């Protein structure tokens, strides 16, 4: 077997193990509460509001998906490595012919798979609800593509956050890493305003802000919930660009995490 092939086998084994652990740890139980929440809220609100049932349902559902996926990404992401160190399982793994970057990639892929399945399930539940609602509204509104695209963007955002969580947890405690990652998520959602401030500033502070905006993740373009709620089409070009952005930014965070992790002392 080639080196690359052997690497892939190991990364896949770690990813599979991580996914299996998440499934057995009842991570997917959140789906039940998610569905109950969205269905319940939709029923209640459709009673009291007029003409915006669909918008409301999509807004509510996508917001819930966003919050769920962000929280899962951050909370599970910071524990990926810390838990293995704490339980010394990592020692038994690294005593085998497993490179540290392979371990990290495997863990990332495992959580990515978990989040993908989780988000897909939530999206299907939401789409079913929207489809039943759509019978009351004109056929023009029936397009489900914006909702699917919005969900895809939310998944990309969660994957970026997993990479960031891995980066922070590669050199700090899980609690601090969770706080850092959530802070970055909040700042990342406001990068538009940072952009604005950068344009208004002069001289050195301007370059500082421009640099900051470059290093921080720009997550605002991953939130197209409002557009999806109004049934507006999301340009194909944006789908491609966002995918590429997520790959580049997530790759950079993951690479930095691997670099730091490869030098980390397993005390």
């Amino acid at each position, binding site marked *: 077997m080639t080196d690359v092939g052997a690497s892939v086998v190991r990364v896949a084994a770690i990813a599979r193990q991580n996914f299996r652990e998440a499934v057995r740890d009842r991570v997917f139980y959140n789906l039940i509460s998610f569905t109950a929440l969205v269905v319940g809220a939709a029923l209640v609100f459709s009673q009291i509001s007029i003409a915006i049932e669909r918008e409301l349902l999509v807004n509510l559902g996508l917001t819930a998906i966003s919050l769920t996926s962000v929280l899962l990404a951050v909370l599970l992401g910071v524990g990926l490595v810390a838990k293995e160190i704490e339980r010394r399982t990592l020692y038994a793994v690294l005593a085998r012919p497993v490179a540290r970057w392979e371990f990290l990639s495997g863990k990332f892929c495992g959580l990515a798979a978990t989040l993908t399945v989780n988000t897909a399930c939530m999206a299907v539940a939401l789409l079913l609800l929207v489809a039943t609602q759509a019978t009351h509204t004109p056929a023009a509104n029936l397009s489900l593509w914006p909702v699917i695209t919005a969900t895809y963007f939310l998944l990309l955002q969660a994957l970026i956050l997993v990479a960031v969580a891995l980066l922070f947890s590669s050199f700090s405690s899980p609690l601090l890493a969770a706080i850092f990652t959530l802070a970055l998520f909040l700042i990342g959602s*406001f990068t*538009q*305003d940072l952009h*604005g*401030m950068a*344009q*208004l500033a002069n001289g050195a502070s301007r370059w500082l802000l421009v640099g900051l*905006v*470059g*290093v921080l993740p*720009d997550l605002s*373009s991953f939130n*197209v919930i*409002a*557009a999806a709620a109004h049934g*507006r*089409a*999301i*340009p194909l*070009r*944006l789908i491609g*660009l*966002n995918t*590429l*952005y997520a790959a*580049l*930014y997530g*790759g*950079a965070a993951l*690479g*930095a995490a*691997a*670099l730091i992790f*490869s030098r980390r002392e397993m005390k």
Partner: protein
Amino acid sequence: MTQKRMRRAIGVIVIGLCLLGAGLLLPAIEASRPVGGSDDITYLPTAGSVKMMSLGYSGLMADIYWTRTVQYFGRRVNVAGARFELLAPLLDTATQLDPQLMPAYEFGSVFLAEDPPRGAGRPEEAVALLERGIAANPAEWRLWYELGFVHYFNRHDYAAARQAFESGSKVPGAHPWMKQLAARMAEHGGDLVTARFLWAKAYEEATDPRIRANALALLRELDHETAISTTSASSPVAEAAKAAKTVQ
């Protein structure tokens, strides 16, 4: 071990390139968004709901909304046919989140009051904004000064302008020339000398370099007008207003 170091260096370079690539994508992403940028806000939450969502950090939210306001204005100013529908609501939100946010009153009233394309051409809304600001900040004589400015130049209501300058002059710590301004309004409502005086004060008082430059340009314009008005019979106020429009 040099091989290891080399691999590490390559790693750092690749990470840097990824980040750079991601950064270079941002303008393209910005351009292809369905909901434009933040300058194209389709709906604006009420100040109350923003305040609630900001969990007590309304000062920061006010700053963010003020920044958005500046951007919103900046993208429309000097653009023919631009509309400023959201300017007043944005300013309202910012100042309700932080009623002590002076720049929002001082600059905001100018943005609102100036005629298109230099501003929104809505002096009534500027007056409303400043009056709310004065109610919230009775110790700030400068807000009275701005109010008088709007009444004089944009609304040509010299009586109201006089009243504003007079009220402002009574605020403790107010500049002495506020009294002079009030007196001038009574005697020579619309003459060029008064306009020149006001702009001269604006030039002296301003700390922002852009405002100073603007005031200076207007002053030069006015000096030019004064020279012409001795030979022509047109209304000095109209001339001053025209000067204000053409400059910049």
